[in-house]
């Protein structure tokens, strides 16, 4: 689940997540961005839902429920268009990323579908987490 660092983005939107307003704002921005990049309705829904899951994790787990969502356009070497969303926080970090990626695993009274579900909705996903320092989740979707 690695994301190659080949992306060259143009304009980038940044949404500060500081509670459930941030969840709604983040998914609205990402849906608008996906729409602007020519993604279809189903992909718009997948992307907005994935962002909603990740932003919700920030509110639920991160220190003070604060984090950041950065959205930008991608252009692959083969000219495909994509979208990249980076969700980061300075929370406690994920002790075991492999475990967190498993269906049904949750430490926060959720359904445990957030991270594995997000992985299924997107084309690429990588998680960089350090205990006590925070978590950065990067997701990408390419237009077909």
């Amino acid at each position: 689940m690695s994301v190659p660092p080949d992306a060259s983005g143009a304009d980038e939107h940044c949404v500060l997540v500081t509670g459930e307003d941030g969840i709604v704002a983040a998914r609205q921005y990402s849906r608008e961005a996906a729409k602007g990049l020519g993604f279809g309705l189903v992909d718009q829904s997948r992307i907005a839902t994935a962002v909603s899951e990740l932003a919700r994790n920030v509110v639920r787990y991160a220190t003070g429920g604060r984090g950041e969502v950065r959205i930008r356009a991608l252009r692959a070497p083969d000219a495909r268009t994509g979208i990249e969303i980076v969700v980061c926080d300075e929370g406690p970090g994920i002790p075991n990323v492999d475990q967190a990626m498993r269906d049904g695993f949750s430490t926060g009274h959720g359904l445990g579908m957030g991270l594995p579900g997000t992985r299924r909705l997107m084309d690429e996903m990588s998680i960089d987490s350090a205990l006590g320092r925070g978590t950065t989740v990067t997701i990408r979707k390419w237009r077909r």
Partner: protein
Amino acid sequence: MARVPIVRLGEVLIATVQDELYDQDALQLQEDLGGLLERGSARGVLLDFSAVATVDSFLARLIGVVAATARLLGAETVVVGLQPAVAVTLVELGLALPGVRTALNADKGLALLSSRPPDVRSS
């Protein structure tokens, strides 16, 4: 944020969920429906999702909780108007709303509720 309006049509409570539902509104809806069902005479709940573009795991879970709560209070729940893109996303997310009845639109949902045999508790 905006409270989800609930109207009564015969024995059915109809909640039309707006786009970009806030968590707080969703929880309020659950509470409002519980209160209305407690007062009796409703035996159906119709949740209209036709205006909702994003259903994440929180909202999907809440739909299940509302349906289960309503059932314990003697009412059947039908979710109507799910957008195709939302349906695809929910299946991929792994949350296909098991145990929740669905119908394509409000008309079909109401037909489903009215065709239901009388409630055992009220007979």
